[in-house]
């Protein structure tokens, strides 16, 4: 895992624990819906907060292939590095 991915993971952990009141663990293998039980509001808050923090834009299209914390982490890290979208779920 490269450094900017770790920064994204830290921010995802902060958002789900502080803003979304999730008390469990948050690991890259965790599924956003099944494990973290994020509903549509939770996903929106997560997306908007990540956008603010990393100064990027996410869209509905980004939902394709993003199932786990790891998928989201890689997507945001790629965007923050200013690269076009990586293949769904693929590491940069």
């Amino acid at each position, binding site marked *: 895992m490269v450094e900017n991915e770790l920064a994204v993971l830290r921010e995802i952990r902060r958002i789900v624990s502080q803003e979304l009141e999730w008390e469990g663990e948050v690991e890259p293998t965790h599924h956003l819906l*099944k494990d973290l039980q994020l509903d*549509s509001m939770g*996903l929106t*808050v997560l997306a*908007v907060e990540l956008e*603010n923090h990393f100064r990027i834009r996410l869209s509905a*299209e980004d939902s394709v292939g993003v199932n786990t914390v790891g998928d989201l982490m890689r997507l945001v890290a790629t965007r923050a590095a200013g690269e076009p979208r990586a293949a769904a779920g693929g590491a940069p």
Partner: protein
Amino acid sequence: MKGPALPALKHATVNEALAAAARTPRGLVFVDTSERETHLPWAQVYGRARRFAAGLRRLGVAPGERVALVLPTSPGFMDAFFGALLAGAVPVPLYPPVRLGRLEEYHRSTARMLEVSAAAVVLTDAKVRLLLGESVAAARPRLGCHTVEEVAREEGDLAERVSPGSLALIQFSSGSTVDPKPVGLRQGQLMAQLAALEAELPPPVDRTPVGVSWLPLYHDMGLIGCLLSAVYYPGGMVLIPPEVFLARPALWLRALSRHRGFVSPAPNFAYGLCLKRVKDADLEGVDLSGWTHALNGAEPVSVETLRLFSERFSRWGFQPGALRPVYGLSEATLAVTFPPAGRGPRALGVDARVLATERRVVDGSREVVSVGRPVPGFEVRVRDELGHVLEERRVGRVFARGPSVMAEYVGHPEATARALDAEGWLDTGDLGFEAEGELFLTGRAKDLVIIRGANHAPQEFEECLEAVEGLRTGCAVALGFTPEGENDEALLLLAEHAPGAEVEGLEERIREAVLAGTGVKAHTVRVVEPGTLPRTSSGKLRRSEALRRYLAEELTAPKKVGTVGLVVEMAKSALAFARSGRDG
């Protein structure tokens, strides 16, 4: 119950009201996530809309045609919305896709709403357009899909004359894949609602009237209650995109303070969200004393949330008297009842059990909040199943009549006939009672689940369960209820397991399927024995009766039946499934 007389209308149409607002220095302010503000005076809104209207005409949009808008809260929305009106066309605002949202479900519902509203063209922005391909391909609007920039590119000027009888807006009572009903509203109906709202929300006289809203513009409370109200006063309106509010609720309160907003409505959950997520540090220097109308509507109102909100935010000047639980529905354009200004919430303690079992009000510990009396021009009646008007403190169906009640569900004469009678009474589908001259809501007879102010058809949740193994096909109901000790409406699922199925792990699978399919988390899932849920004689599930029995703790498994009974049960189940498939 009857409201006061409707004041004389200031303008006959939205188009005239906008032209008048454009002669004032007031206008819109857009707030982004970093709290940067973009000002757009009404004069500019009007000028841009005239140019846009000409663009629509050039494109081939004729007066009376429907123009679907899939746009975020932005200046582009204003161009398209007011541009469509000035072209004499009918705007149909639809919800844009959400970030990380479920695209498949989005495409299905958008295509369905485009079809049902018979949209001639879809207007969007460059980013959303890339995503809309599938929905547009399925609905095939006559003039295709265009971005706001494309339509506004060339010079032009058009302001079509429209009459109070012209169709002015189509809004959906619940955005959904199943049976979305397009509410058709005429210019005159919008104006009557705006006049009633102004009478209930007298703008301050010592300063420019400014409202603040984070509500989506494809929702009646945001579009009519906020945006069009501001055109009507005329006043200023500060708009925050809904997703920005969800992520940073403090921005709402800060905008109210910065602009000294006198009015801002929101569903109950938003007040709860502020309690949970706004930190004291976010409110440095904030002054909420100018917020004189904190309207709470679009979903059931919790007395507890109101109390906690007043307590917490009084430190920043919030006035408890500002809280006004209000009632309305898109079929009435928006508002039906409002409590008196400045009084604060009034609640009655009722016995929840007697209410559910006997439909009458006796003193008890469950607090039900008053939503007030009819707004100007409106009448409200509570009737029993046979249509007789009920005396005070008897629970029945709420009917409303007034100058802004819709004329029809566009293109749905059967649904219209079910909702409206010959004398113009609208069956709201809500349950409630009258006491001390005010209306109290207790539940819903119509099939509807309201989550965070958004209306969902129960079928949206129920169809997610069809693929869940171990459930009896077509034998589950989705219901909205306010759980004991909580303040917001939540999702309840009652599902019958298949005869002889392993029940272990079933609840979990139901929760997963619904969350993945709809983005809504179920609060309570109850797996029950086959035959437990109440049905009509033809085998159709009776949702509101299921909820009544659940709340009254009367939901019990049927007596064991022999082989013949079982065969009958299975036939009923198959029939119910066939029907639910057809109705959907």
